């Protein structure tokens, strides 16, 4: 029942099922062995005791009667049968040729042995049925045969019933053990999976989230409590660090604002000679590039450290690339580059649209900047084995294999980029945006040229 409710709320992978079932099977087996042992011993002890007492009673009667004086025996048998029918159910005294002298056994039961030992025999009844008797017999000194028997049909029926009960309850226990064990294992694994998912969220920047702790904590919960306490601490530290960062940015940039305004006043005052004016204009440009650079760094830091996942939504990457391609085609054309967009049908992924656009624009700007006139830049989306691939490719000089690992690092500039203005932050911004989304980034040889791929999960596949 529990397992059913779990399986309806979360889809459980086959592997999880298998290991949970294995655990459940183990539990059931152990339970079966335990219960089987207890029941077996109970069965064996109780039935043995009952049958032993029957045997003892039958033997006792046989011995008792055979020790009586032979001439009194018929009389004793008759009086015993009359007065104590409960003690010895049946007695028969037969002559040497097997004819009944006295008693309530019609004839000597087939297969009886005259060794005084009780054994169970199936004997036909007068009504045509079969009854099982515990029979002991002996040959008396005068050649007559004495047979003592007790009907054990009721005891045997009872023993069979006991056996049935035992088997049924054993089967029930095995079944329940199997189900309970599987459910328990599934619950444990479901909990582990939930904890894992939360931990992954936290790792991706959702520092406000906490691991679940149940009302009655077990060892695992104690561990979670400790981790949560560490997270509290971490969150406070990150907040303090962010605050400090804001203060630093404020303290650095506010004087730059005043400086920039002063320089503008100089530029617009009309009292500068041409040479000085150029210096002032150059300084203004320098301030602006410092601002662009620090803004970019702050953005990378923000993307990497903050859980801006609330902006995630379904985005059609194909439409986004077509839009960006349309916007940048004139720009590429001015640089003597043909910009093509190759998409087929919507490619829906989970993303922060603005950040994704920023990454693709960065790659597109890079491609246009480094490919060179006469080349082609292609923006492309396709589906590949349940995944979405967004690619920006060019047939320009490309990136040397030795540089490929490095170009995603901050401020690193490839050798082929020497002499072209740039900060070396473009690809590291792309990398941090990809990391924020959990996308893979591949830098490939486009033979010739460079091809950057963002590989991510298709939305349809996840739904």
């Amino acid at each position: 029942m529990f397992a059913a409710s779990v399986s309806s709320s979360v889809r459980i992978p086959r592997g999880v099922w298998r290991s949970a079932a294995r655990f459940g099977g183990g539990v059931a087996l152990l339970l079966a062995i335990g219960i089987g042992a207890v029941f077996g011993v109970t069965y064996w002890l109780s039935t043995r005791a009952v049958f032993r007492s029957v045997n003892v009673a039958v033997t006792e009667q046989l011995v008792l009667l055979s020790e009586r004086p032979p001439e009194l025996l018929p009389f004793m048998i008759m009086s015993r049968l009359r007065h104590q029918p409960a003690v010895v159910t049946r007695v028969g005294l037969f002559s040497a040729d097997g004819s009944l002298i006295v008693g309530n056994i019609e004839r000597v039961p087939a297969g009886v042995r005259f060794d005084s030992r009780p054994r169970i025999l199936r004997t036909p009844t007068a009504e045509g049925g079969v009854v099982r008797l515990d029979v002991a017999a002996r040959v008396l000194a005068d050649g007559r045969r004495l047979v003592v028997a007790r009907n054990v049909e009721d005891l045997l029926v009872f023993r069979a019933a006991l056996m049935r009960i035992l088997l049924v309850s054993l089967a029930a226990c095995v079944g329940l053990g199997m189900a309970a064990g599987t459910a328990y294992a599934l619950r444990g694994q479901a909990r582990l999976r939930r904890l894992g998912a939360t931990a992954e969220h936290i790792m991706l920047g959702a520092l406000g989230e906490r691991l679940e702790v149940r009302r009655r904590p077990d060892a695992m919960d104690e561990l979670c409590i400790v981790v949560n306490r560490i997270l509290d601490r971490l969150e406070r530290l990150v907040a303090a660090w962010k605050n400090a960062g804001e203060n630093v940015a404020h303290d650095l940039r506010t004087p730059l604002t005043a400086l920039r305004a002063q320089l503008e006043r100089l530029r617009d005052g009309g009292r500068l000679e041409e040479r000085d004016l150029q210096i002032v204009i150059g300084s203004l440009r320098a301030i602006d590039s410092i601002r662009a650079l620090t803004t970019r760094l702050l953005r990378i830091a923000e993307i990497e450290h903050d859980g801006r996942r609330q902006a995630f939504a379904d985005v059609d990457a194909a439409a986004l690339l077509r839009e960006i391609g349309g916007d940048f085609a004139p720009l590429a054309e001015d640089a003597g580059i043909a910009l093509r967009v190759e998409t087929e049908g919507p490619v829906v992924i989970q993303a922060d649209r603005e950040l994704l656009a920023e990454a693709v624009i960065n790659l597109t700007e890079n491609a246009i900047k480094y490919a060179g006139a006469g080349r082609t830049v292609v923006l492309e989306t396709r589906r590949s084995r349940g995944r979405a691939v967004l690619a920006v490719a060019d047939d320009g000089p490309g990136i040397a294999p030795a540089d490929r690992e490095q170009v995603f690092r901050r401020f690193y500039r490839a050798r082929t980029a020497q002499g072209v203005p740039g900060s070396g932050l473009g690809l590291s911004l792309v990398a941090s945006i990809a990391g924020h989304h959990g996308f893979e980034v591949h830098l490939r040889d486009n033979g010739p040229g460079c091809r950057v791929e963002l590989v991510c999960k298709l939305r349809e596949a996840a739904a």
Partner: protein
Amino acid sequence: MTRLLIVEDDAATAHELREGLGARGYDTAHAGSAEAARASIAESAWDALIVDRMLPAQDGLGFVRTLRERGDTVPVLFLTALGTVDDRIEGLRAGGDDYLVKPFALGELVARIEALLRRPAMGMRPLLRIGSVELDLIARTARRGERDLELLPREFQLLEYFMRREGLVVTPAMLLRDIWNYNFELRSNLVDVQLGRLRRKLDALGETRLITNVRGVGFVFRADT
């Protein structure tokens, strides 16, 4: 004369802003803290506030939030040192109308303030006509005089944006934000190239140039008749 209150704790910056804005014909005053700003607001009316996000004691966000809670709708432009996405969103949530990342060009500041003071005419009429240019907002067609303009959707969007802000300086950052929804800086001159295309279609040989450059700041659309 337009009256601007600058709420900024750095005296040198405030001084330079006052100088620059004064030279461009604005009447400005300076408040060094949220408290001083509240006193200035109680004393007289202001056309717009320029508020530093980081102020001693109560910060800019809190100051503007309480201002809005009191029902004051004066346009507010935040000055911020961070320029991150969260920073911008927080500023807008607190009731700011626009924000500018330090350090900025005075021209950009003036353009933003003018845009705040003269909200664009967002009429519901299907036809937008300024001078010889006519936009059919439903059919998405454009004409200049007798000439049909073959505009791409983006170019149409740009032209509509400029026409609704006739006579106002529009900066590339404003266009990126409002036309492309990009709140980040580009390394390429996307705006210049796109505007270049639009202008080539808009102005035939011998016609008045409708969208002109404002040196070092941006562009402005002016009616031709």
